[in-house]
């Protein structure tokens, strides 16, 4: 029941908003996503929200990816918006009840274009101000090494389908999905985006941030 009730509520919310979203009205998305910066974020907001925040979508996403994804949504967060709600204790380790992870509605091509336009207008003031990603930096072998063994990003994120952790969003198509400046800024200080998010702030040096961002930005680029 712990899982079934929120899931049923989410299905209802998605059904209620699908018609609005099909018309290209971004307000319909607000049933599940924060389109404005929460005035007073709390830990419990994570337990209640039905979708990831979109109030900085224009700082985060690449528009071509948005247009494609909105028409053919895939699961980005293997455990759902809060993995704990779909985690099941087990041996040899806990698992995710993937059948319970809600799926996102698809929209038609014209709607996807309209929604992408609106989403790209949503920007957080100064969120990327500290982002110093240098596009000239090549990830090299150190990029993958930093992502994996050295800095442990792979503990929570997958850089290949089926390889890596499940509690964070997958990153195997992040090169197509995310703006490098956003990846740098988020990796540097996730709490700048949300004080309570379960990715903590690591003490990453600028060279580390550069090579990790460069590596993430190569992932899935050819898939578009």
């Amino acid at each position, binding site marked *: 029941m712990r899982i079934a009730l929120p899931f049923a509520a989410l299905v209802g919310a998605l059904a209620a908003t699908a018609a609005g979203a099909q018309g290209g009205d971004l307000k319909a998305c607000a049933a599940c996503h924060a389109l404005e910066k929460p005035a007073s974020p709390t830990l419990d907001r994570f337990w209640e929200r039905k979708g990831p925040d979109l109030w900085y979508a224009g700082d985060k996403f690449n528009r071509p990816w948005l247009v494609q994804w909105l028409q053919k949504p895939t699961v980005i967060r293997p455990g759902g918006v809060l993995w704990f709600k779909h985690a099941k204790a087990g041996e040899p*380790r*806990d698992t995710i009840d993937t059948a319970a992870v809600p799926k996102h509605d698809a929209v038609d091509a014209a709607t996807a274009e309209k929604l992408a336009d609106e989403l790209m207008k949503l920007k957080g003031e100064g969120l990327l101000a500290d982002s110093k990603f240098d596009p000239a930096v090549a990830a090299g072998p150190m990029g993958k090494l930093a992502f994996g063994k050295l800095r442990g990003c792979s*503990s*929570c994120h997958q850089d290949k389908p089926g390889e890596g952790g499940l*509690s964070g969003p997958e990153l195997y198509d992040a090169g197509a999905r995310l703006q490098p400046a956003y990846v740098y800024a988020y990796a540097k200080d996730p709490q700048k985006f949300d004080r309570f998010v379960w990715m903590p*702030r690591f003490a990453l040096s600028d060279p580390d941030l550069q090579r990790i961002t460069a590596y993430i930005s190569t992932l899935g680029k050819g898939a578009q």
Partner: protein
Amino acid sequence: MRALYLMGLAAMAFAVQPAAAEDDPKFQASAHIYDTYCTQCHGVQRNGKGVNTAGMSVQPRDHSDAAGMASIPNAEMIEVIHKGGAAANKSALMPPWASVLTDEQITDMVAYLRHVCKCGG
């Protein structure tokens, strides 16, 4: 600076109260924080078997292991939660949580962990 930091840690370790009762608000708050942040690696049942552990080169600590947990002083637990595993020559896969948790929440978490492991203070 290092001496000041160590003094701070010692003060936080001193502030760790004996394992709280399950109906204590601090216990409940720590359990909620644990569910949100710690279970991804340390497991729903606090046994080190979280959803993220499949490919980890070093497996997370089993917090239900009384013998293993009893060997870790409160001050070390506080330092590892605060600054990450690498700060105490442990796995760098344990990240620093100081950007998310307050000093008081970390101190309360150590008391909660003593309750989980049933291994005193």
